[in-house]
């Protein structure tokens, strides 16, 4: 068995030796450097711009402003194209703009022979602005006389509302208790270690090649085509090894610009690479949410209704803004699927950096609100927090109120039970005093989550794979799906080896995507790849296997139905110890026999029409130092139902990484905006408190593994979910320790101080 074992990741050696090549590790003779001129105000118009001095500087190849770019508005969200005109992404960007919508907006760009000259040229551009009042907060953006950030929108990107599972008013009347709460989440930035970077050049007078650190090469190709009005077939996007994305590279940020620049400059190679400070404001951030939740309960402690009213701030441009709240709402519904579920939501524009996709796409924000509210519910009823969730949480066989489809596999309750054991919940509850008084107080907390394994039925879920048998009996596997660090290439190789009867080392994954070569797949997002692309890989492997057996049967004269592949050999199905020949023998014959055969290849494409849900929880034991307003995590566990685990070691790593990001968002991280000017105070890795190794405690991960029937290896999603539940679990543990409910993130000493002071604790 290869599936289910912790084989070494396929790109591991390349990465520990530093041989793995990322976008910036490639260079070309004569490559130029591009740099943006970014606005120094958050809202207004460029009233005049003078680039003549910059253009005259020796070493400058070109200076382009909003006046020079195509008058073509486009959408940047990395979604697959939608055939439904009501479900298109929002087109609200030009390559460069004279209408400044956040501090750092892109108004001009310089191309020069070196970094230094490009920087010098930027300083020679004269810009004058007509400034408007920056609209930073919702109340400003939605004020009656507010200037429209995008014309005709009233500063509202989208409003949604739905009720699923019953009549809201009727259920409200049936409830014995209605509880309300309001919860706020902050602006978080992805901080993938490799910044956004891309370069482009031309192959001839028409064809543009773009090399980019992207999660979505095939989508990037389409969006560049749309933005520049070029045929898709003339654009080639190559994705080398990528240094993390977490959703920030599920957006088309630099690719249209580098394509535009090389085209303008007769095809010379142009690199555009953002530095950290630029990237933290000029790419995407996580949407801050402000959510009001109402929970309806009966006397027994059953949750009858969940209603929420969410406000999401997408900042300067829509990016993914139109779909974040609805996706978050739909995916979190599965936590408590037997309750009536109702949502009203509004996403607004404002003059802060554009928010887009980030790990778990709206679910961390929604789950923070719901799991805080559920904690109040349990406490109001006097019920144990874990018991309350065991009573109300999803079970296999429950029906989704939204899709009306049953939940096939659900390990939520088992994961809660496992979490209780791991943290010693019952024992600590029994031993710890009910009321604590000292300066340092201990608390236990729990929160649960649910998530999806892709985007179906909201979006199309296509994946494709190709396998080529080599002369040595190994195979090359090409996928359009993208390895971004999460380990998908290794999981694909495991699945291919398993289906083919090959040993793991005989599968070579082509890790770099090249849209001229690799088959179509929409890329890395929505934790979709092992679930969706895995099925394309399995189908391709089955085809290749059938072709190998067919050729082996021609060579050996044995019926193809009597033989199979095992351990890199053709063997008799009934007696696998009898080796007929090696796969290599078949390959050599197929390639070189003058009379028969040919290269053996297979290709399959697949569209997922299922979206199984994943579940799990966080359990935490922490201490709160009341005078210092500081939280110390003593123990923390995430328990996941992701179906059958393909690679336990890598799965554990995904969980650890998500937990650390969740802890960061819970306790430290916040991109801070000046409410008057719209200036970001801390767009660097020193002042933005991304957790270091000192800030993250020992992490525990565990799995429950129901076998998902819709996947050939029983697998469901894993990449994003680990980030979802740490923040509410930590918040609930602080409440447990101190009696104080912190209803906003991050729960940094600054925030905690405010709450403790109000509560009279300090």
């Amino acid at each position, binding site marked *: 068995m290869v599936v289910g074992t*912790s084989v*070494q*990741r396929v*790109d*591991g*050696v*390349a*990465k*520990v*030796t*530093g*041989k*793995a*090549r*990322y976008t*910036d*590790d490639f260079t070309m003779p004569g490559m130029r450097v591009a740099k943006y001129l970014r606005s120094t105000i958050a809202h207004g118009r460029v009233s005049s711009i003078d680039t003549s001095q910059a253009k005259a500087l020796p070493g400058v190849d070109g200076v382009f402003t909003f006046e020079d770019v195509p008058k073509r508005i486009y959408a940047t969200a990395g979604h697959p194209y939608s055939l439904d005109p009501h479900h298109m992404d929002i087109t609200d960007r030009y390559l460069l703009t004279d209408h400044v919508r956040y501090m750092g907006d892109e108004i001009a760009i310089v191309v020069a022979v070196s970094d230094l000259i490009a920087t010098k040229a930027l300083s020679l551009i004269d810009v004058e602005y007509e400034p408007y009042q920056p609209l930073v907060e919702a109340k400003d953006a939605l004020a009656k006389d507010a200037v429209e950030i995008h014309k005709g929108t009233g500063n509202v990107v989208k409003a949604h509302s739905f009720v699923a599972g019953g009549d809201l008013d009727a259920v409200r009347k049936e409830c014995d208790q209605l509880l309300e709460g309001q919860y706020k989440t902050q602006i978080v930035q*992805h*901080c*993938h*270690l*490799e*910044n956004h970077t891309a370069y482009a050049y031309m192959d001839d007078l028409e064809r543009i090649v773009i090399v980019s650190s992207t999660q979505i090469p095939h989508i990037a190709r389409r969006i560049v085509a749309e933005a520049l009005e070029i045929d898709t077939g003339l654009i080639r996007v190559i994705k080398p*090894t*990528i*240094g*993390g994305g*977490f959703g920030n590279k599920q957006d088309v940020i630099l690719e249209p610009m580098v394509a535009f620049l090389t085209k303008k400059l007769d095809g010379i190679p142009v690199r555009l690479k953002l*530095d*950290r400070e630029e990237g933290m404001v000029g790419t995407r951030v996580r949407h801050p949410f402000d959510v009001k939740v109402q929970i309806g309960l009966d006397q027994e402690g059953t949750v009858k209704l969940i209603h929420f009213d969410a406000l999401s701030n997408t900042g300067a441009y829509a990016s993914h803004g139109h779909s974040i709240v609805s996706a978050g709402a739909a995916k979190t519904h599965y936590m408590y699927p037997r309750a009536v579920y109702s949502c009203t939501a509004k996403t607004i524009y404002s003059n802060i950096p554009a928010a887009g996709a980030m790990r778990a796409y709206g679910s961390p924000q929604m789950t923070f609100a719901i799991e805080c509210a559920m904690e109040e519910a349990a406490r109001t009823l006097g019920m144990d927090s874990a018991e309350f969730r065991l009573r109300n949480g999803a079970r296999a066989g429950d029906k989704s109120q939204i899709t009306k489809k049953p939940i096939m596999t659900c390990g939520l309750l088992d994961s809660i039970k496992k979490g209780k054991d791991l943290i010693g919940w019952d024992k600590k509850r029994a031993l710890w005093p009910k009321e604590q008084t000292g300066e340092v107080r201990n608390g236990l907390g729990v929160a649960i989550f649910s998530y999806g394994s892709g985007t179906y039925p909201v979006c199309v879920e296509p994946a494709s794979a190709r396998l080529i048998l080599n002369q040595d009996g190994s195979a090359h596997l090409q996928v359009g799906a993208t390895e*971004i*660090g*999460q*380990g998908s290439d290794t999981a694909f190789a495991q699945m291919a080896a398993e289906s083919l009867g090959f040993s793991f080392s005989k599968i070579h994954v082509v890790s770099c995507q090249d849209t001229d070569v690799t088959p179509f797949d929409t890329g890395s997002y929505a934790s979709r790849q092992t679930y969706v692309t895995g099925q394309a890989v399995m189908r391709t492997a089955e085809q290749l296997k059938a072709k190998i057996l067919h050729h082996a049967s021609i060579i050996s004269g044995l019926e193809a139905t009597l033989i199979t592949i095992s351990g890199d050999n053709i063997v008799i199905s009934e007696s696998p110890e009898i080796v007929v020949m090696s796969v290599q023998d078949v390959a050599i014959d197929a390639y070189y026999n003058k009379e028969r055969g040919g290269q053996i290849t297979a290709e399959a494409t697949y569209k997922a029409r299922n979206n199984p849900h994943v579940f799990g929880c966080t359990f935490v034991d922490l201490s709160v130092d009341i005078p210092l307003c500081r939280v110390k995590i003593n123990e923390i566990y995430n328990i996941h139902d992701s179906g059958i685990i393909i690679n336990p*070691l*890598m799965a*554990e*790593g*995904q969980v*650890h*990484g*998500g*937990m*650390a*990001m969740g802890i960061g968002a819970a306790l430290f991280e916040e991109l801070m905006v000046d409410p008057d000017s719209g200036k970001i105070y801390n767009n*660097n*890795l*020193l002042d933005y408190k*991304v957790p*270091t*190794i*000192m800030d*993250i405690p*020992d*992490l525990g991960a565990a799995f429950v593994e129901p076998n998902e029937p819709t996947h050939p290896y029983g697998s469901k999603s894993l990449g994003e979910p680990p980030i979802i539940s740490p923040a509410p679990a930590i918040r609930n543990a602080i409440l447990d320790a101190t009696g104080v409910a912190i209803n906003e993130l991050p729960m940094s000493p600054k925030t905690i101080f405010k709450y403790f002071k109000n509560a009279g604790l300090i």
Partner: protein
Amino acid sequence: MIRTISCTVNSKPVSWQIDVRMSLSEVLRTNGFTSVKEGCGVGECGACAVLLDGIAVDSCLYLAIWADGCNIRTSEGESKGGTLSEVQQAYLDNGSVQCGFCTPGLVMSSTEFVEKHRGEKVTRDQIRKEHAGHICRCTGYESIIRAVEQCMKPYEKGK
């Protein structure tokens, strides 16, 4: 201003003509040592860490001219004759590599740690403190600590 520096990189003597304004990371990368990554360029993330006379430094903050006469080690040089170093192998054994962008720098700090503390019994706290100059956004650091612990184990026993 152009100057010549002579140093040893991964056991090989080199002599480079450099612009005195260039950082060590820039010079190393230009000369093909692309394991040296740039995540911030200002000494916040540790992705560009190399060993300079045995001590991990952020090469983005270190002028190349200062490295004249020094012995430099980068991740490329840690595997020898097709075999990974014990730290590199421990990173693979413990799943300490995801996107890999932080990895070459972290491998060098772990190498410094393991060489420095050989024979000692170390705590997780000590491992944390001596890797605090690195940001890894993917792993949550747990597997990195485990990799270092794996490297320290045999020496502990031998004590």
